[in-house]
């Protein structure tokens, strides 16, 4: 309301206040200061993911990531979590298809401890056999819970339908009970040795820090990360889906059905990715979930949730539409989703709706960048997709220039109202 009395209010992050430093081994460090609160967020990733593992070992990348904190350097599993939880800090690792990501948070007075644990986890995990067995039991329990969860089952089946069986995306990054049972300690040790290298590694530190000191601290700890010839995961080529792919998975005793419908989508580096993002926002994000929310939830009262999601990562992740509905309403909800896809393909988006959606995508930046974790997450993406440190400065203009024709063209290019994959999980008889 007034511009007086502003002391620490930061601007949109850009080349003027992001420190970017590349270590000799190729790892990239990004730092942005924010002294509003005595806290720090660390995010990052390295190039090791589920796509780098054999189908019969599906879940290996996730198993390895979770194993990093089961013992590292001189610390046992118990010591690591006693040390971290005693200072209110957190650090976690998880694996996707192409990357293993980490995320941590601590008070600024505890940065050194968190960085020590990060270093040990990445460079010196001990993978104690008995700890890996404990982890295996937890994973298998998690997979059993997943097999009984309609949303998870619909999502897993969707990936099987939307991608050919030789494509890593057709498999769950967390594996199955069978594959997780087959993973050995040696598999995990080898995967770590072969794939946890500095090439492509990104580390972002945001918060109450001195950037020069952070770079020194990280160089001292991660400068020794080996430069590996990390095998680049070549993905099999994707052909368009031939005809509708549909599957219903009955889960007895459930009361609601979950639907996931969609197709393989554009990669983040696609020239028209922002056009697709705008199309996706119109379809199933804006406000209470865009046109899908308005139609499926608000007008027809069919679902508690209905939305769309565009992945756009390093590979052709899906563009998918999800809804949770009463079993009797599955067909009607699916038809409505299809109708909304068709409408976006056949009719130019009205000028006002287009303007609203652009305005939302640009206007939501301050909210997204309010917290250290929001900024940190954005910095990692800027580096991973080589968007440039001035990306956030250029973003509003890039977004504002997109036309209704370009949105329609992206919808026509990537979506198909007649040929898509659709998976439904719910009570028997609810197909």
């Amino acid at each position, binding site marked *: *309301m*007034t511009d007086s009395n502003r002391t620490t209010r930061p601007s949109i992050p850009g080349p003027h206040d992001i420190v970017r430093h590349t270590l000799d081994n190729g790892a990239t460090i990004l730092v942005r200061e924010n002294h509003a609160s005595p806290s720090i967020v660390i995010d990052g990733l390295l190039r090791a993911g589920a796509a780098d593992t054999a189908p019969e070992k599906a879940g290996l990348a996730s198993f390895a990531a979770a194993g990093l904190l089961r013992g590292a350097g001189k610390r046992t599993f118990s010591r690591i979590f006693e040390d971290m939880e005693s200072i*209110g800090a957190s650090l976690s690792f998880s694996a996707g298809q192409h990357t293993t990501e980490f995320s941590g948070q601590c008070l600024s007075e505890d940065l050194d401890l968190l960085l020590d644990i990060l270093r040990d986890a990445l460079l010196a995990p001990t993978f104690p056999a008995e700890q890996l067995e*404990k982890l295996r039991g937890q994973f298998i329990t998690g997979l059993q819970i997943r097999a009984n969860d309609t949303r998870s089952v619909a999502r897993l089946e969707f990936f099987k339908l939307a991608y050919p069986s030789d494509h890593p995306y057709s498999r769950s990054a967390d594996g199955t009970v069978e594959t997780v049972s087959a993973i050995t300690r040696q598999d995990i040790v080898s995967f770590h040795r072969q794939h946890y290298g500095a090439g492509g590694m990104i580390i972002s530190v945001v918060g109450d820090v001195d950037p020069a000191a952070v770079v020194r601290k990280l160089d001292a700890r991660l400068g020794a990360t080996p430069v590996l010839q990390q095998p680049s995961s070549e993905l099999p080529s994707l052909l368009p889906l031939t005809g509708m792919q549909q599957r219903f998975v009955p889960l007895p005793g459930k009361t609601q059905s979950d639907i996931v419908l969609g197709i393989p989508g554009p990669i983040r580096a696609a020239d028209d990715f922002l056009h697709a993002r705008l199309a996706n926002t119109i379809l199933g994000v804006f406000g209470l979930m865009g046109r899908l929310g308005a139609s499926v939830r608000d007008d027809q009262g069919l679902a*508690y949730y209905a939305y769309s999601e565009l992945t756009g990562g390093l590979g052709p992740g899906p563009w998918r539409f999800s809804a*949770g509905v009463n079993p009797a309403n599955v067909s009607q909800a699916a038809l409505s989703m299809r109708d909304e896809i068709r409408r976006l393909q056949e009719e130019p988006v009205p000028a006002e709706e287009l303007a609203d959606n652009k305005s939302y995508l640009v*206007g939501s930046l301050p909210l997204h960048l309010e917290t250290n974790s929001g900024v940190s997450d954005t910095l990692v993406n800027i580096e991973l997709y080589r968007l440039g440190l001035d990306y956030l400065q250029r973003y509003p203009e890039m977004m504002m220039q997109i036309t209704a024709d370009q949105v329609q063209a992206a919808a026509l290019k990537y979506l198909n109202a007649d040929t898509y994959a659709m998976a439904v999980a719910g009570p028997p008889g609810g197909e």
Partner: protein
Amino acid sequence: MPSTEALAPPNTPAAGKVSRTVLDNGLTVLTKEIHHAPVATFWVFYRVGSRNEGPGITGISHWTEHMMFKGTPTFPNRVLDRAISRVGGQWNAFTSSDFTAYYETLPAGEIDLGLQIECDRMVNSLFDPDEVSSERTVIISERQGAENNPMFLLSEEVHAAAFRIHPYRHTVIGDMVDLERISRDDLHAHYRRYYNPNNAIAVAVGDFDSDAMLARIVELFAPLKPGPDPRPVHRVEPEQRGERQVTVEGDGETSYLALAYHAPNATDLDFLPLSVLAASLVGASGPGGGGTNKSSRLYKALVETELAAAVGGGIGPMIDPPLFTMSATLRAGGDLAELETALDAELERLLTSAPVTEEELIKAIKRAKAAFAFGSESVTSQGSWLGLSEITAGSHVWFQNYLANLQKVTTEDVARVAANCLDRRRRTIGRYVPSTSEPMNRGNGTKSALMHESA
């Protein structure tokens, strides 16, 4: 304008001063000016939740919350949503056992939109019969989605068993029989009874000038007429005499265990010692919570020993004495009775040979300090805690002084509260076990999750 009291800022650098004002029509207003980012949040909390419901109208507070998104004559349905989204804002609402809360978080220059919307819908929401009818299926779908989750089913039965009298016994989402029958007029009457300035708290946090913000809130809200004070809730839960047990059979291959003990409410002096106890047992919760719980006593006793795949639980501030719950997910292939025995042994150990230590107390305080620093990064989080504190503890000072008061807790306090609270005669054990036969027809249960996110 009536009196304004200013309070000392808490121990976090990003925290500003909170001003509290009560308008002539009874509206309580909290403002906190902070400039860490060009954003601001505006909340309105109503003193109504599932606590104010009885049989026949369970779920009505939550459904009313949904109807508040369906428009007024000034802002018809979807106009609100569009107006917020167009400027890059977020809005949502929550219904809990104790309150219903609405918020808008916006770029700082747009915060007036939040004030206008909340002022308007405090009195002018339409409750159009067609909208009520289409929302009925949305609400039922929300309940069915929750029923797909075994932990919802178990928690609902545990609450229904632990509370015989108090309305915490039923879920926020409500019983299916009531969701099928509640009428438009029921909803509208509920709205008129509870949505009045004298039953509400407005909270603004963020990048604004406090005086200007307060003046604008007064300009918009002061003309609203107060309503009669809502009927207080008098359904005090009598002391439980003897352990209660419930079993839920259902689908899947996984068993779950839940233990629920009657616990002190937010204003009870025992609340903070109990939150330290909870942090030791299952990890930090409430305003000092967050993070993992792998160094907690139950994790070590149950997960490290491979009896459970995960443990959880905690305690949060509530108006009336709530449940302190602990839960465990049985590890695949494990034995539920063995898990239960180990859990009991660990609680017994705490009560006899191994009370909560000074080290654990220091850890809980440090974790809370970190949680407050992390929370201070977000205006939305701060607005939420200030309002929640005002509702459940009678004053936002509860939140502002949380860290300072936590530091006064001693291990003796924790031991005393542990002995009081962890009494087997006043607990409820819930077990979820996979069905061995064909799925049953589901009955209509009662209570569970304390917080439902809407929209």
